[in-house]
Each structure stands twice: as C-alpha cells, then as structure tokens.
C-alpha cells in the first residue's frame, strides 16, 4: 500500500518536470514553423523592397526644337543626311531652354541627363514624320539610368549617385517643373534585354519562356499521360516494368543540372541542334518534368475506383475502351493538376538551361522555336550578376513577375483540384 502511494507520489512529483518538457517540445515545434515562415516573409519583403521601384520608369518630357541648322539636316528622307545629322543637339537645346540657370557651355553635361537611346528615338520619329522638321514638338524620352537612380534612390545609401552636384541641382529643378517624371514602367514589359538598365525589359525573356513552356507542355503532357496509362493499366508484372518504374523514380530525384549535360551532349553535340533555342530548352525540360507528371498521373489513375472499370468491362468494352472512355476522363483533373505543378517547376528552372547556352545576351524578342532566346529565370540570373544596382532592381522586379506567374499557376492547380476532382 505504501509502495503504491509512493509510486503515485513519484509520478506526481515528476509531473511538473514532464509538463515542462512537454511545453518545451511544443515550443520547439512552434519555433521551427516560425523560422520557416520568417524566412518566407523575409525573402518576399526583401525582393519586394528591392524591386518595386523597378516598375517605375523616369521620363523627360521636352519641347524639342527640330531646327534644321542645329541638326545639320534639311532633308529627313535622305538616308545619307540622316546618318550624318546631329540628333543630340536638339535635345541639349531643349534642356537648355528648360533650365534658365544653365549656360551654353553646359550642353555636354546636360546631354548626359538623356538616355543613350534618346537620339535614336528622335531620329526614328523624324524619319517617320519628315514634315516635323523646322517645328517644335513635345516629346517624351527615357531619362539616363544615372538620372533614374538619382530620382528614385536619392536617400538610399546603398546606391551610388553618379551625377555631379551641378547635374543633381538641374534634375531637382526639372523634377519641380514636372519635366522629369516617374511613371509606370511599360518599357520593362515591352522590350528585350539591353546593356542600359533603363532600356532593359523582360519581353524577350517572357516570350522565350512561353515558347519553351509550349514545347515542354506539348511533349511532356501527352507522353507522361500515355506512360502513366501503360504502367497502371497495361504493364505486365515483369522485370521490364520494374526496371521502368525504378528508372522513373530515380529520374525524379536526379539533379536538374544532369539534364543540362544530357541536352548538351545529345541534342547539341550529337544531333547538331543550335544552341540557346527554345526548342532544345523545351526538350531538356520535357525530360526533366516527365517523371513528375508520370508519378502524379499514375496516382490519379489509381484513385479511380475499380467498380468503374468492372462496370465498363461488364457491358463489353475492350480494355482500351475502358481506359480511354471511362478511366481517363475521370483521372484527367488530377493529371492536369500534376502537370500544372510540373510546368511551374520547369518554368522556374535555370541550371540545365545555362548548359545549353540560353545565357547569351539577346536583345531581340524571339520569333520562333529555333531562334536564340533566353528565359525568365536565366534573365534574372544574368541581371543579378551585374554590378549595377539598377540591374539588380530589375532582377527583383522580374522575380516578382516570375513569382506572380508561378503563384497563379499553383492557384489554378488548386482551384482545378477543388473544382473538378471527384471524391469516391
């Protein structure tokens, strides 16, 4: 009796310690989740705070005097004259007119406020409208990257301001007068890469990604579904089937860079396909995403109850008819979901594409599957490696766009699953 009492006493005495342990263990769990969520939050805020300014462009709106004498040009339809003409002078003159404090000798310094492509833009406009010569036109140009950095990040110590004190005063004055303005950066979405951050955009990368994904989707979805159907419905129980399964499971865990080596050795060296084209990128990503799609498609075929198959067989359908007319339509939503998730993975993939040469500096927006292109993640990689902070800002903005694509793809997958998937 006393023995039992002391036993109970012992337990009671140890309870406090055990509860404390329990509490500690639970706290560790909460801490772990906290760490993970904190990492997620820091990651997102870091990227947003670095990159939201990337969605702003800085423009200069000027009254440009298209004076024939200033430009040494009297016939804009003559290509020879256009080639020799001076298109910087009118821009300098226009800035001089805007700034009463500036003197004639400051022309060169003033010209540096304009984007390096502004003169080309003026030339193209004039060539398109020869009758503008001799008039004064209101035109909007992109500002120089240094001006953009100054306007956006005056108070940020991380950025180094490359403008002289004089130039800074001018820009301040122009901002006050509404000549220099910040607005939504449509250039970022409509142009390809550029050496100059203010002209650089992601249009080329988006189109490249789109073409690559199109190849990947057109190949990996049908092949993946067909392979899943074979393995689930037709494959005999033998060594070959086992071997295929082992292969698929292993390929799903092979590092993606290995697929880049495969693409380089097989598609480029063996078949002599061109480098850095969406076609080869798509083929490599197809091989990479196939295992994921096959595995998820098999899971969704498995979830179709056997009663459906038995009922169809019972009224005389052939095995293929059972699969194509009954099992496949029921399993399709699950397959779609898995494929969208696989495609999202492929969209974010960088390493294998580096090896097949999709890292080239490409200004033009690609027009076909066999033209040199780059993709979103590789564009981010290229910009992230730049020493110029203005490029880093654009890399962050591109990351936001990429993440928006990925999140909406995943949301679509979740919505599809909720909407179409049947519970048995």
């Amino acid at each position: 009796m006393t023995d039992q009492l002391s036993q109970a006493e012992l337990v009671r005495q140890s309870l406090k310690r055990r509860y404390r342990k329990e509490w500690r263990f639970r706290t560790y769990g909460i801490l772990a989740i906290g760490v993970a969520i904190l990492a997620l939050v820091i990651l997102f805020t870091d990227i947003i705070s670095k990159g939201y300014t990337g969605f702003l462009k800085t423009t200069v709106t000027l009254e440009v005097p298209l004076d024939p004498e200033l430009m040494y040009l009297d016939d804009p339809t003559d290509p020879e004259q256009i080639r020799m003409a001076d298109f910087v002078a009118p821009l300098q003159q226009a800035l001089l007119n805007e700034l009463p404090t500036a003197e004639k000798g400051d022309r060169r310094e003033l010209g540096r406020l304009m984007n390096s492509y502004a003169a080309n833009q003026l030339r193209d406009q004039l060539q398109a409208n020869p009758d503008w010569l001799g008039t004064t036109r209101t035109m909007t140009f992109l500002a120089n990257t240094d001006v953009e950095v100054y306007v956006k990040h005056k108070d940020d110590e991380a950025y180094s301001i490359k403008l002289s004190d004089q130039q800074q005063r001018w820009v301040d004055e122009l901002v006050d007068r509404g000549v220099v303005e910040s607005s939504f950066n449509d250039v970022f979405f409509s142009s390809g890469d550029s050496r100059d951050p203010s002209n650089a955009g992601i249009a080329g990368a988006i189109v490249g990604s789109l073409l690559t994904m199109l190849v990947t989707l057109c190949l990996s979805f049908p092949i993946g579904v067909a392979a899943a159907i074979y393995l689930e419905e037709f494959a005999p129980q033998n060594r070959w089937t086992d071997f295929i399964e082992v292969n698929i499971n292993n390929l799903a865990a092979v590092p993606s860079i290995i697929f880049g080596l495969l693409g380089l050795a097989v598609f480029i060296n063996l078949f002599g396909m061109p480098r850095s084209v969406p076609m080869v990128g798509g083929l490599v990503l197809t091989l990479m995403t196939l295992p994921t799609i096959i595995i998820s498609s098999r899971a969704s075929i498995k979830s179709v109850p056997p009663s459906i198959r038995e009922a169809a067989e019972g009224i005389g359908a052939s095995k293929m008819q059972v699969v194509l007319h009954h099992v496949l339509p029921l399993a399709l939503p699950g397959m779609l979901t898995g494929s969208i998730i696989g495609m999202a993975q492929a969209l974010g993939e960088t390493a294998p594409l580096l090896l097949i040469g999709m890292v080239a500096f490409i200004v033009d927006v690609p027009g076909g599957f066999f033209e040199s292109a780059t993709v979103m993640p590789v564009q981010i990689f290229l910009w992230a490696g730049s020493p110029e902070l203005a490029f880093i800002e654009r890399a962050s903005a591109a990351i936001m766009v990429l993440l928006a694509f990925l999140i909406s793809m995943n949301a679509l997958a979740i919505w599809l699953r909720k909407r179409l998937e049947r519970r048995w």
Partner: protein
Amino acid sequence: MQPANLFPLIVVLVAIAFALGYARSRALAMPLGGIRNLKSLPFYYAARAAMWCGLPALLILACWLGFEAKVIQTLIVGSLPAELRPDTAGQASLVLSQISNVASGALSGDFAPEGIAAAAERLEALRAQSTFMMTALVLSIAVLGGFIAWLRIAPHINAREKVESTLRKIFFLCAALAILTTVGIIFSVIFETIRFFGKVSFIEFFFGTSWSPQTAIRADQVGADGAFGMIPLFVGTLLISSIAMLVAVPVGLMSAIYLSEYASKPVRAIFKPALEMLAGVPTVVYGFFAALTVAPFISDIAEAIGLSASSQSALAAGLVMGIMIIPFVSSLSDDVINAVPQTMRDGSLALGATQSETMKKVIFPAALPGIMGGVLLAVSRAIGETMIVVMAAGLAANMTANPLEAVTTVTVQIVTLLVGDQEFDSAKTLAAFALGMMLFIVTLLLNIVALHVVRKYREQYD
C-alpha cells in the same frame, strides 16, 4: 516550308484522313444494311486511316529534324578546300560557326577567306534543299499513308483491334522513354569521362588536392596543364550541404511534428501551404536572396564581431539552401509520421505518456527509417543544387572547414566550365563531364538507398 508550319499541316491532313475514312466506312456499310454489319465502328476505321497518315510522317519529320544539322555540317566540312579543312573537332566547330555567321549575314563575307564565303553559300543552298526535300517527303508520305489506309477499309477488317494494339505500343514507348533518358544520361557523360581520364590520371582526379582548370594561353605558362584534383570540390560540396542539412533537418522535422501532432485543423490549413510555398520558389530566386542579401548581412555581422568573412561565404549559400530544403524534409516527414498507426499513439497516451513522450519514445522510433530515407533524399537534393551555389558560393577552390570562407562545389564547376564558348577536346571541358558523372553516381546511389528505405518502411505499416 518551316517545320513550325509543317506540323499544323500534318494535323490538318490527319483530320482529313479521319473524315474521309469515316465517310468511306459508312458508305461501305450502307449497302450491307447499316454500320452494325461492319466488324468495327466507323470511328475505328477512321482512326486507323488517321494513324497511317500521321504516324509515319511525324516519325520522319522528327528524324529529319534530328539529323539534318549534323548531315549538313558533315557535307560542308567535306566540301571545304584542303587548306581550310579542320584537323580537330575544336577547329571544325570554329570554322562551322564562321560559315554560319557569314551565311546569316552577322559577319560580312568580304572579310572571310575565299573558301568560307563559298561554303556559306553552299550552306544556304543545302539548307533550302533540305527543307524542300523534307517538306516534299513528309507530305507525300502523309498523303500516301492516308490513301493506302483509306483504300484498305473493308467491312471484314477488325480495325478496332489494330488501332488498339498500335496505341498500346505507343503507350509502351512513352513509358520506355524513362529508360532511354537514363541511358542517354549515362552515355552522354561516360564517353567524355573516358576521354578525360585519357588526359588526366585517375589518381590525380580522385586524390588531388588542388583544383584550377586553367587552360594554357601560352605553352610555357606556369600551371598550363591545370590541376584537376576534385577533393577541394568535394569538401566544398560537403561543407555547404552539411550547413544546409543542419538548418533543414531540425526545422523541417520539428515543424512536421508540430503540424501533424499538435496543430489544430485551421492552423494546419494555413501553415502547411505556407511551408509548401517555400518549395515553389525557384532556385534562382534563392540564389539572388543568398548572394545579395544574406551574404552581405553575414559578412557585416562577422566583421562586427571581429571575424573576417568573405563576401561569398559557404554559410550564406548553406543557410539559404537549408531554407529551400525545409519543405522537402517537412512534407516527407509529415507523410511518414502520419503513416504510423493511430493505435500506437493511443496505446502510449493511454499509459499516461505526454504527447511529447509519445512522440519521442513511440512514434519517432517507429518513423525513423522513413525519416532517414527522406533525409537522404534531401541530401541528394543539396548536393545537386546548382543555382544557389553558383550565385552565392564563389569559384575559389579552397579546402577549408571554415563556413565564413568562400568554397566551390561540383555543380558550380560544371556550370563555370561549360557556360560560354568551349572547345570540345580540352581537359577543361571534359572535366565538367567527369564531375557530372561523379554527381550522377553519388545522387543515384543516395536515391536508390533512400527510395528503398522509404518503400520498405511503407510496406511495414500498410
């Protein structure tokens, strides 16, 4: 015609073949007294005609596209005058790129040697010829195949059986593509690796302690051969992976335990997808984060407490890689923990154990093999991860265990050696394939062991 236009045309032809086949099978059935006198439904006759029209044509199109470039290159190189003919593969690719640049107009023919300009013209002509021949061949095969199948439509033929057996074969080929991919991977690394070991000794590669794959600019340059000892890469990979696992395993495991054992349903519904979001972030974004935010932060802190840290530290890459792997560990452990039968939990709780005691003494030991399998898979992920280390770990092959120094990894070296222009017979390029082979073998072994352990474990409780 461009292949991009040819493909839709084939699709149209297939549709026509289908429609004609359908019409013919119905027409044949009418005099017999309706389609029930056909051996198969009209759909199957039509499908058979469509297959005959489409499959051979697509097969030929794919083969042509695959081998066209190589055949044209061989023809061009063969037709070059003797003084221009390249001796090595490296020269060949140089000459060929020159020719194609002239052909595409990127390089003016005036500046190129006589033979090159001629070859460029020939290249253009061959390309045009090849495209024309391909278009003609593919289209005629499609039409011919469709026509033959259309002619052979007869009421007594069991078209369904034929269509189904063809489909079954196609399905099998799709599944067998997995084997083909593995074989492709092995073959693409093995030949270059063998050539690499012809230039660099086995012992130097596996036991050498210095890695600097410079190629000689001058023949008498110091270190002209480059050093190819992979130990420093191995050490670097191991260092970064261990830092990553030190972050990922405790955090991933504890959050899985909390979410599966403690969290209420709504909490679980919020935090589980949030954790999975970490898995959906592309690696290049993690690399960006590691290189531009975490690495400077770490080097600032190290400086503040009087340590010297390199601007590209193993710690930054490892930490961020750990964050990336957290969801991987947590979702695998979650599965495993949930697979432990509820009866074991109930038994332990009924004996008066607290939840944490149940977890530590009953569930965790039962789930350990599965968790180990998951951790091994995570290790294989960490070893093969590329973008984070390329952006944040640096290129210097230091042999160090100090996480504040810059190290380099196997994947970083593969990328650096293969990005950009390369000659295909230098030891430098071949070394990348040898490293790739090592990486493939190591991850393959890890995966096989891990998958085996996980499967064994599942069977135990199923």
